[in-house]
């Protein structure tokens, strides 16, 4: 099968809306199709990666386990915007999985290399 470079751009906070969760379902399918998948987290999208989500009281499924499982799908390219973290008082240590913290400009350059950009 043709392999293309797919980037999923996540700019929305988790739980307030379902976009982040349904985006993750697309990521897993893209990996199953053996595409070259990367994820970019900008703006409120960085909140998706925060560790320690406890969704018991709001009765929805939490992300943390799925982030951990991404490696099993060979998805290792998670890019997080440094500026977005800093603006929200977060650092890489606050995140549930290892990521590459990059400047927005660096993420912008990676966007230019993609074949398909899906945004949620």
């Amino acid at each position, binding site marked *: 099968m043709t392999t293309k470079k797919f980037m999923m751009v996540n700019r929305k906070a988790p739980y307030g809306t379902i976009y982040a969760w349904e985006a993750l379902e697309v990521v897993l399918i893209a990996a199953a199709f053996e595409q070259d998948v990367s994820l970019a987290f900008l703006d409120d999208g960085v909140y998706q990666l925060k560790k320690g989500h406890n969704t018991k009281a*709001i009765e929805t499924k939490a992300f943390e386990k799925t982030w951990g499982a991404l490696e099993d799908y060979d998805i290792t390219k998670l890019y997080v915007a440094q500026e977005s973290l800093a603006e929200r008082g977060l650092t890489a240590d606050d995140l549930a999985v290892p990521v590459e913290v990059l400047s927005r400009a660096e993420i912008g350059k990676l966007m230019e290399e993609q074949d398909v950009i899906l945004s949620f």
Partner: protein
Amino acid sequence: MKFSILVNEGPYTHEASDTAYQFAKAVLAKGHEIFRIFFYHDGVNNATRLTTPPQDDRNIVSRWSKLAQENNLDLVVCVAAAQRRGIVDEGEMKRNGKDATNLAPGFRISGLGQLIEAGIQSDRLVVFGD
């Protein structure tokens, strides 16, 4: 005290529908009365019995139906918003020449006047939306 609740977003897509449900439960637990819960905009999509959420997820629609049944709640779906979005009961099916219904138990379809009436009759009207 008499509460009414307005739900403006559909199930799963926005947390508004979850928040409204948790709020409604807490209102009842506190011993208050719920005069009416009104579903408007995409909120009407809370009222379709055709959803099949993943087994490990909450069933938002049946949760509303159950809450209504157990507490004798009045769950009203706005007819104009429902027509735009395809939420149909027997009466709407016949009136609009449709071939199926999808309204879940415990909900009824009625006019926007029911929202205004809820505002008039209730001590508090709380809006959940996007």
